[in-house]
């Protein structure tokens, strides 16, 4: 379907262009708001991959949680709005080398790997399978992660009170 290809490129362009602005813009509040569009683009890509649960979790965690936290941080710190975020002025040579090598590895992996293509039905709903995986097959890992997050939460709260 050509129209779905178009929608894919639309979301991909949205993600990449706004991610570019997040990195390059000087005003940190603008960067934070462009992050919103990056997250929305990624959500769209997940929807096109028929991963509805992951898409909505992306919205909850990144737009509803992390982005809002980020904006709070930026806005409550009065002085930070005037801080010039210097992008592209530090350590250009090492950065270029690092990014170049990384891109090379990624492209090489993408082109040289023989991807296994499986013909499979697009699942109508993913929640039941995810639920079974999380709470039956990997329940110990899941609970341990929960405890880890709780410990981190309590630690953060006690550090903030000090």
């Amino acid at each position: 379907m050509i129209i779905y290809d178009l929608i894919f490129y639309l979301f991909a362009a949205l993600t990449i262009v706004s991610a570019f602005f997040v990195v390059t813009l000087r005003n940190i509040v603008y960067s934070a708001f462009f992050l919103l569009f990056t997250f929305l683009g990624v959500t769209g890509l997940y929807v096109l991959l028929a991963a509805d649960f992951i898409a909505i979790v992306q919205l909850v965690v990144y737009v509803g949680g992390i982005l809002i936290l980020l904006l709070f941080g930026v806005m409550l710190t009065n002085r930070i709005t005037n801080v010039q975020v210097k992008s592209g002025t530090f350590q250009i040579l090492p950065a270029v080398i690092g990014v170049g090598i990384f891109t090379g590895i990624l492209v090489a992996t993408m082109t040289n790997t023989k991807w296994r293509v499986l013909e499979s039905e697009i699942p109508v709903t993913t929640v039941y399978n995810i639920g079974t995986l999380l709470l039956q097959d990997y329940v110990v890992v899941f609970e341990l992660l929960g405890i880890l997050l709780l410990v981190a939460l309590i630690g953060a709260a006690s550090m903030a009170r000090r």
Partner: protein
Amino acid sequence: MIYDYLYKLTGSEIWAGVIQSFFPLFLFILPFALFAVWLERKVSAHMQDRLGPMRVGYHGALQTIADILKLLQKEDIVATENDKPLFNLAPVIVFAGSYAVFAAIPFSGAFIGSNIDLGLFFIIAVSGLVVAGILMAGWASNNKYSLLGAMRSAAQIISYEIPTIIVVLTIVMITGTLSLYKLSELQSGYFWNWMIFGGPGPGLHKFLFIPFMFIGFIILYISTLAEVNRTPFDIPEAESELVAGYHTEYSGMKFAMFFLAEYANMFAVSAIVAAVFFGGYQSPFGYLGNAFNLPWLIPIEQFFWFTAKGLFFVFVQMWLRWTLPRLRVDQLMAVCWKYLIPISFVNLIIVGLISVL
């Protein structure tokens, strides 16, 4: 389903989806906002023993249309110190966030914008977009009152999302579905099959559930009221402290967009309460369509019942607005974190134990 009809008509799922996505806005939100603004003024007036708007049309029925004509003619003011791009974008994002909720709301058995399996979860997720828009409006206005209002609003919405999610989780635990369509279909039949009366089917569970369902309903209603920033939780736009909160600097149609988003939100949360606890679009006592053997009448009746339930809860919101005084900021947070969240957690555990019995 209306979608199938549109699909046959246009022959393309994209066009059918696009056309369908305009339905709730033009056929529902705009007429509803026209009516609700007038209703709000009439309700407030009658509660204070006044008459309210009386001049334009019968008992002021055309007052909102006159107001919109006035708003359209107003100058669109953007102050020099405002951050123009964000200032212009913010009302759009706020309205987009509240309109996205309508994609998953089941207006009737024949019309749901998008019949996704995760409807309830989606509705909770997209409300994060509204918070981002409100913060954007507050920051771009470059005004102390706006920023304070936006901060308060964001803090309030994020805090009150937690009890909402826990109550919704309670229902999801019993019914085993996140789809609002399936949830409404489960509660079909008579009103004693509604979740507030313990859900469908006879049995001991049903009667044990009833008191906890009422607790859940009250918590959900309070926290959704706080999420749409209505009195007694309207500290983000408390007139006596913050002028008008995050939309102080806005005028003309941009202000109207915030206003429209607020009314759309009011109906959206009422619709969620109705869909989760009060049978969604199901009639409390059978359908005329079934009685007279007219199958086409049933979706229309369902739409009528859904709107009636939604409007009733909107009316209760207005009623509370003119009855209760506003909370202080610390009281607001205390209500959420010290009372609603623990109660809803205990409620969740008890309901879980009962359903295991």
